[in-house]
Every structure is written in structure tokens, then in C-alpha cells.
């Protein structure tokens, strides 16, 4: 709750009094502005030096509320391939969306115009990319514009929210996200904020939207002023946080900037929620510009609160976080974000551990729940991949099913936290199943990874289906993202176990602290250690130890694994990724990427980790084999391609590119033949082309690539002279002449356009064009005047009918 005393901050913007989500105007009641934006401003954070851009249909850069903060360098027009993100104006104001989103982030304060943005001193740009064909290239370009300059990319769009679409970023957009989080913001990682879907009424599920469902995006959902679920809201387990947006007609709406220098309080769906959170993140980045993309997500998890948001599924996970499928970790809290950001230290590096089910295909029987399990240690054997404390959990599934919408999928963590990865989708009749689709949950954030994970798949037929066709769970994997050490304990002074916010009102703030208490896991400081006198582990040498476990040994019988920093333990054999140094009785690490080795030097690696291939005499592990080699999957080695192949796939003689002097025929490299010949696969020799061809792919006259001298290309053949209805012309890009088609209905012409000299039967020659021998009705003087004044004769239909009639009529 914040004070309703508005005297301490007041702006002259006309819509300021309607901005209930930033402050309250009701003097008689304490009211709910629980995003605590005023308090963040009072601490001095308004988004200065932070750059935000809106990926959308453009922004109106000369809008009085945006022009002062508009940033040309944070803007681009991908649709028009220039630097001006101004939207295309039309009578329906179709392209208002980006401008509306932009105002929510960075509308100028106190300029007597419209509204105040949440980060009203931030720089704001727009990337115009939705006003044209959207392709993977368009998305990848947009997500990768000036990543070292732009801090936050906010997007409020996605695949159809119709409850039957399963779609996400293509390969280039995925790479752009990955590149952004790895290299953007000079290595701190770009921040991508994404609006959760609008398909609530269609029973859509935001897990079927690969953008909000990505670990690289901060997926934002919406709530109404009263904390109710808006009608458009989609449930899902990848939603991280929530902000306000519009709801029913009686709910108060959000005001923002609109096209043509106006303001609006029109329905905003979920779209303004993302820029609101982008604005709050801008405040946090001003408080601490050195936080990484993952720090921002940790900050949101730590500081967002259930507040008064109504949901039946609020639960507390094993790490003490309250989380819901509607609102993620709850309403964003700007003040808490800036306070925490200010003292934040970067979380430890992200580790990724993948576990794949070893089961073969399992059938999904109607109305029976299929439970599949994976037990994991969190890749404890691979220090570089080990995950102990969770962030995102991705579940990749390969499911075939005759009606995708009948499936429900849940994931249960070892601590018992159940996330619904997918609910039934009534409108989804697709029989495509899920082909390596990646679901994602944040509901296990902070929990420990070790133990048994259960995937529950339930098929509840909603309409008649062939009962003999069963769905199949063919393959599934868990991809754990997180850290090997506690994300906050390593710098406990910065991350207090309870959020010590200086919030004036004692009651609610105490309640708030209680909600985010982390489980006590470390031993209390000052506790004295007692000398151990029990039995030692069997791997301990000389029965000397200070505890019962293998990591309590003072010396090892066989091998010691680990180091002083991570802790040492005794093992009988070294795990994968290590070799046994028998002299020193230590497990020593193999070279990078090597899974099995006999030493550290060149040539010591015997096999590589999954996804890597052993190459060359020096035994290097590589992600992909070099040119001239192919990746052999069984031994995971790079093997040489056939000598004629420059590149090959899966086998030495399945060529995809050829060495010099050879060319590709299917997947075989055959000798290149001289001009006028082609390689005859059956005879295995160069045979002559048809005499009309200069180069060809076969003996036929329609298999020419280039035509012989004195021949012209007509359609797919080479001809000595152009046929009736064609004229000889130059090809734009090929160094040979082509026969081009005359105008329609023309049998003979001199070139392109109205140059016809002979027409088909039923047509007459009029001014170089062939006009049908028919007249149109109503060709009176007035009508012909209209034809003339509207230049209808330039249009094909009229030229064929009324032009001739009008010409004859004079």
C-alpha cells in the first residue's frame, strides 16, 4: 500500500489522474498501487541512460510524449530497410500498436501532454517489423539490432492465440536470442520482455507459443485492477511476472500514447503489460547497470508478489517462492526491484544439464495417465554442467497423437512441485503431435534438481476418435538450467535471506517479508565442530576421516576427485571426463569436451562428450566436423569423406559438395564434363548434350542449362527462332538471349508492351494491343467521359471492353 498523498509527486500531464496503476487518486481510501512505481521514482530512478526498444509496427517518433526520449539509434525499419520507424498511416490506424506500447515505457513526464511513462527518462526506440511479411529473417534481424546499445527489447506479439497453433521462433530467431543473451549489452545479455498470449477465451495455452515459452524471454501476463483474471489471459508455467492491463468494461483501463499525437484508454489486452515490466526493468538497470539477463530474471522472481491477485493455484515451491500458472511469481514491484538491484551481485554462471529418458516408445491410452520418470543427479559427474539449484526447466517431447488438443502434460519435480506444461485445448484438432517441442516451467525456480522427475501425460478424448489409434510418447528430455552453487549464498551480505525493504507501513511489509523467506540450508555460523569417531567410508585410506561420507576421507585408497574449492571426494574409479593418474592417485580432467581419455596431452582423448566429435590425430573434440569429414554418430568421430567429396553427410560417399573437378549428381560426385556434354550416370561417362544446348543436365532438348550459340531460351528449351507469340529479348541475369512472351492474345510483336502487329482470332489490333471483338453496354457520352477521366483504359478489363467501344464511339 502506498500513501494516497499525491502532493509529493504530481505531474501536469492531463491523464495523470487516470493513471491508477502508478498512483491512487481516491483520498478517502487506501488504494492499491502495488507496483510501487512512485516509491521507485522517489528513490531517484526514472530510467536515465537505459535504452528500450519496441519490436512492433513502428513508433510515432514525433509524438509529443515520445519525441524528447526518442532514440534514433534504438530504432530501425526492418520492413522498409531504413532507419525511420514511423508507422504506416491508414484510415483504420492499424499500426497504432507500437506507439501505444512505447508510451507505457517512456512517455515524457510533466509536458502537459497525455501520460507519464514508467521509465519517463529512458531512451525509447522502435523497430518496425510487423507491417509486412514476417519471416524468420525479419525476426532475427529485429532481435539483433544494436545489441550493445539497446538494453531492453519489448515485444507484444506472437503466433496466433487461437487455441490451435503451436509455433515459435525459427532457427535464425533462436540464434538471435542466444546471441543476444550471450553477447548483447557487452556480454551482460540483452533483455527480452514478451507479452503472454491473448487466447484465454480460445482456451489457448502460452506453452504453445515458443516466444513466451523461451528461457530467454521474460514472459509477462496481466491482471485487472481488482486482481482478477482478465478474459484474454492464458495460463502457463513459463510466465514469470505480471502487471496491470485492461479487463471487463467496468474495470479501469490503462491510458497510453496513441497514433496521430493522441492519447487512448482503449482496450489493451495483454500488450501493455510487457512494456510496463520493461519500464520497471529499466528502473532496475538504472539502479545497477551491471546486472545480467539472468540477474534480471532472479530479481523478478525474488521481488514479484502475489499481492491481491486472485488465482486458485497459488502454491509455494520447495525454495519458498509463491507461484501461479496465471501470474508467475506475481505482480512486479518497482521499488523492490530497484532496492534489490542496487545491492545485487551477479548470480553464478549458468549451467545446463540434459537428461534424456532411456525408455523406448510408450503408448498414451485414452483416459489413463501415463507417468514417465527420469532420475537425475543434475550432471554431478560433469562439473561444467552440474546443476544443483534450478532456474528454468525445459521439457522437450516427441509425441505423436491423432488430436493434439486432447493432451494434458504435467511435470512433477523431486520436491513435489507440479507444473502444468499443457492444458487441454478444445480447438486444437491437429494430428501433428509435438515434434521435439520444448515446454518450459519456472515453477521449480530455486529448488534442488537431484531426484526423480515425473512427466504426466493424460489423453482425454473430447470428441469421437478412432480408439485404435493411440498416441505415443516417443522421446522426452529434461534440460535443467541453473547453478552449481547457491545463487545468493556466495554473497550473503548482498542477498539477505529476507528482503529487507524499507517499506513504511509495518503490517504488510512484515507479511511481505514472511513470504519470501528462503529455506535455512546452511549451518549456523559459530557452531562448533565435534571430532568424528564413527566408521569411515570404504574408499578412505588408513581409516582416517572426519565423517562417514566419501568426501570426509583424509586420504583415498584409489583416487581423489575434485579440488579444494569444490571439495574432494574419494572414488574407486574416475567418472567420465577424467582420467586416472595412478601415480598421484587423482582423477584429472580430460581436455575440454573429452569424455574418455588416457591423459591430458594431444592424442590422449578416446571419445568425446555427447554432441561433440573426435577429430584428427591430436584427438580434438569438435562441435562439427571440418570440411572433408563427416560426423559418425556411433563412435562420435569425424571420418574422412570420399576423395571426390568436399563435404559429405553420415557416410563417406553421401556427398553434399564436391572436390574441384567434380560436380554433384544426387549425392554422388561425378567428374565435371566439358561444355556441350553431361555426365551420364548409367554409362558413367560424359555424353553429348542436345545440339541446342551449350551446357545441360541430360540428353533431351528440354534439359539445357544454357543454350548453344544462335539458340534462344524459350520456356525450358532452346530454339533457333522464337515461336508465334514470342519475341527475342535479352535475359536480365544470364548471358544468353531469351524468347519473351508477347502481350496477351498477340501472335506477333516487336518487343514488350503495346507493340503487337498481329492478333489471335476474335481480337482486333488497336494501338498495338489486341482488343476483344466485343462492345460493352452503356458506352454513351457520359460513360465514356468517365472512362477517360478515370484513365480506365489503363486497366486491362476496361481496355478489353469499354475502351474500344468508346474509341469507336469517338
Amino acid at each position, binding site marked *: 500500500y502506498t500513501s494516497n498523498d499525491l502532493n509529493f509527486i504530481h505531474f501536469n500531464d492531463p491523464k495523470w489522474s487516470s493513471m491508477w496503476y502508478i498512483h491512487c487518486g481516491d483520498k478517502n481510501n487506501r488504494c492499491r498501487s502495488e507496483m510501487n512505481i512512485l516509491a521507485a521514482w522517489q528513490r531517484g530512478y526514472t530510467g536515465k541512460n537505459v535504452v528500450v526498444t519496441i519490436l512492433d509496427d513502428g513508433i510515432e517518433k514525433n509524438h509529443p510524449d515520445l519525441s524528447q526520449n526518442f532514440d534514433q539509434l534504438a530504432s530501425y525499419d526492418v520492413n522498409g530497410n531504413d532507419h525511420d520507424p514511423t508507422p504506416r498511416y491508414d484510415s483504420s490506424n492499424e499500426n497504432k500498436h507500437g506507439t501505444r506500447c512505447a508510451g507505457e515505457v517512456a512517455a515524457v513526464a510533466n509536458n502537459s501532454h497525455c501520460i507519464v511513462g514508467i521509465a519517463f527518462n529512458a531512451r525509447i526506440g522502435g523497430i518496425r517489423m510487423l507491417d509486412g511479411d514476417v519471416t524468420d*529473417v525479419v525476426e*532475427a534481424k529485429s532481435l539483433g539490432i544494436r545489441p550493445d546499445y539497446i538494453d531492453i527489447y519489448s515485444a507484444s506479439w506472437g503466433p*496466433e492465440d487461437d487455441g490451435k497453433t503451436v509455433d515459435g521462433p525459427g532457427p*535464425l530467431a533462436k540464434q538471435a536470442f542466444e546471441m543476444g543473451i550471450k553477447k548483447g549489452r557487452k556480454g551482460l545479455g540483452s533483455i527480452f520482455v514478451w507479452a503472454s498470449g491473448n487466447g484465454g477465451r480460445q482456451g489457448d495455452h502460452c506453452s504453445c507459443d515458443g516466444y513466451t515459452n523461451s528461457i530467454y524471454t521474460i514472459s509477462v501476463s496481466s491482471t485487472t485492477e481488482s486482481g482478477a483474471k482478465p478474459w484474454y489471459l492464458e495460463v502457463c508455467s513459463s510466465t514469470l511476472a505480471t502487471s496491470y492491463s485492461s479487463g471487463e468494461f467496468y474495470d479501469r483501463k490503462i491510458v497510453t500514447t496513441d497514433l496521430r499525437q493522441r492519447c487512448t484508454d482503449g482496450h489493451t489486452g495483454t500488450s501493455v503489460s510487457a512494456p510496463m515490466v520493461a519500464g520497471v526493468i529499466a528502473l532496475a538497470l538504472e539502479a545497477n547497470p551491471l546486472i545480467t539477463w539472468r540477474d534480471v530474471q532472479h530479481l523478478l522472481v525474488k521481488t514479484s508478489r502475489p499481492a491481491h491477485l486472485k488465482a486458485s493455484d497459488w502454491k509455494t515451491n520447495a525454495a519458498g517462492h509463491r507461484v501461479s500458472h496465471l501470474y508467475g511469481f506475481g505482480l512486479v514491484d518497482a521499488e523492490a526491484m530497484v532496492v534489490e538491484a542496487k545491492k545485487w551481485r551477479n548470480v553464478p554462471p549458468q549451467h545446463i544439464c540434459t537428461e534424456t529418458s532411456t525408455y523406448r516408445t510408450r503408448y498414451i491410452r485414452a483416459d489413463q495417465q501415463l507417468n514417465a520418470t527420469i532420475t537425475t543427479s543434475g550432471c554431478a559427474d560433469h562439473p561444467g554442467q552440474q546443476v544443483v539449484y534450478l532456474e528454468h526447466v525445459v521439457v522437450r517431447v516427441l509425441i505423436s497423437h491423432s488430436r493434439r488438443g486432447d493432451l494434458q502434460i504435467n511435470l512433477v519435480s523431486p520436491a513435489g512441485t507440479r507444473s502444468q506444461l499443457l492444458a487441454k485445448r478444445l480447438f486444437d484438432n491437429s494430428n501433428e503431435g509435438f515434434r521435439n517441442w520444448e515446454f518450459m516451467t519456472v515453477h521449480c525456480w530455486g529448488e534442488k534438481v537431484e531426484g526423480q522427475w515425473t512427466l504426466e501425460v493424460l489423453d482425454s478424448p473430447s470428441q469421437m476418435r478412432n480408439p485404435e489409434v493411440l498416441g505415443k510418447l516417443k522421446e522426452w528430455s529434461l534440460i535443467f538450467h541453473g547453478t552449481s552453487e547457491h545463487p545468493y549464498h556466495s554473497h550473503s551480505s548482498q542477498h539477505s535471506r529476507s528482503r529487507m525493504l524499507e517499506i513504511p507501513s509495518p503490517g504488510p511489509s512484515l507479511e511481505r517479508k514472511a513470504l519470501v523467506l528462503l529455506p535455512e540450508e546452511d549451518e549456523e555460523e559459530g557452531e562448533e565442530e565435534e571430532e568424528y569417531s564413527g566408521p569411515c567410508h570404504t574408499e578412505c585410506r588408513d581409516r582416517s576421516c572426519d565423517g562417514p561420507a566419501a568426501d570426509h576421507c583424509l586420504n583415498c585408497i584409489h583416487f581423489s576427485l575434485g579440488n579444494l574449492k569444490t571439495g574432494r571426494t574419494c572414488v574407486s574409479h574416475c567418472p567420465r571426463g577424467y582420467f586416472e593418474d595412478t601415480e598421484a592417485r587423482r582423477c584429472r580432467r580430460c581436455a575440454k569436451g573429452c569424455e574418455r581419455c588416457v591423459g591430458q596431452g594431444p592424442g590422449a582423448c578416446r571419445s568425446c562428450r555427447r554432441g561433440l566429435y573426435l577429430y584428427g590425430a591430436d584427438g580434438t573434440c569438435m562441435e562439427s566436423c571440418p570440411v572433408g569429414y563427416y560426423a559418425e554418430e556411433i563412435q562420435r568421430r569425424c571420418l574422412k569423406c570420399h576423395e571426390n567429396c568436399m563435404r559429405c553427410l553420415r557416410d563417406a560417399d553421401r556427398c553434399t559438395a564436391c572436390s574441384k573437378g567434380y560436380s554433384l549428381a544426387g549425392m554422388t560426385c561425378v567428374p565435371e564434363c566439358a561444355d556441350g556434354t553431361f555426365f551420364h550416370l548409367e554409362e558413367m561417362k560424359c555424353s553429348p548434350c542436345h545440339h541446342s544446348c551449350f551446357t545441360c543436365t541430360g540428353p533431351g532438348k528440354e534439359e539445357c542449362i544454357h543454350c548453344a550459340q544462335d539458340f534462344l531460351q524459350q520456356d525450358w528449351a532452346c530454339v533457333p527462332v522464337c515461336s508465334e507469340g514470342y519475341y527475342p529479348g535479352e535475359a536480365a541475369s544470364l548471358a544468353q538471349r531469351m524468347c519473351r512472351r508477347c502481350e496477351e492474345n498477340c501472335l506477333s510483336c516487336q518487343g514488350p508492351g503495346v507493340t503487337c502487329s498481329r492478333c489471335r482470332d476474335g481480337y482486333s489490333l488497336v494501338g498495338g494491343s489486341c482488343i476483344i471483338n466485343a462492345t460493352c453496354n452503356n458506352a454513351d457520352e457520359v460513360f465514356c467521359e468517365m472512362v477517360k477521366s478515370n484513365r480506365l483504359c489503363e486497366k486491362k478489363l476496361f481496355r478489353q471492353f469499354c475502351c474500344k467501344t468508346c474509341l469507336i464511339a469517338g
Partner: protein
Amino acid sequence: PSSRSLYTNHWAVRVRGGPQEAERLALKYGFNNLGQIGSLEDHYHFHHSKVVRRSTFSTRGPHSFIHMDPKVDWIQQQVVKSRVKR
């Protein structure tokens, strides 16, 4: 892409050898090189003005030979993705 895909006259191409090599390849097969795709190194955006702008099938022609060029690591004709504002 599924059978309902709409193919455009734009391509994404991964080419080793830098922008000059990309430019050379584009010229060789009649494409217009629209430059690197965002921050993705070695990835270029090619456009072919002689190919129909939107088509329900992937069109073949002399430009298709680029798929077989040894300098090209990967190439993909771009399909229209239905994206809605929220």
C-alpha cells in the same frame, strides 16, 4: 515448412568467407544481397526479384543452383510466419 506454407522471394544463407564472398554468390545466382542478418555472423539475407513474391510452393529456376554451391553452408527460402499483435 508444412504444406500450408507461403514461400517468399527471400532467402537466408550461411556463407563462409565474409561479406565479399556473400556478394559474389548473390551476383552469381541473380540474388540481391540485403546484408548480414542482425548480429548473426556469416548469415546473409538474399532477395530474388525474379521469383514470385508469395507462393504456395518453393519455386525452382536458375537461382536454385545456389543450394548446391560449395560455398553455401546452409540456405533456407523464407516462409511467411503468421504473427499477431496482442
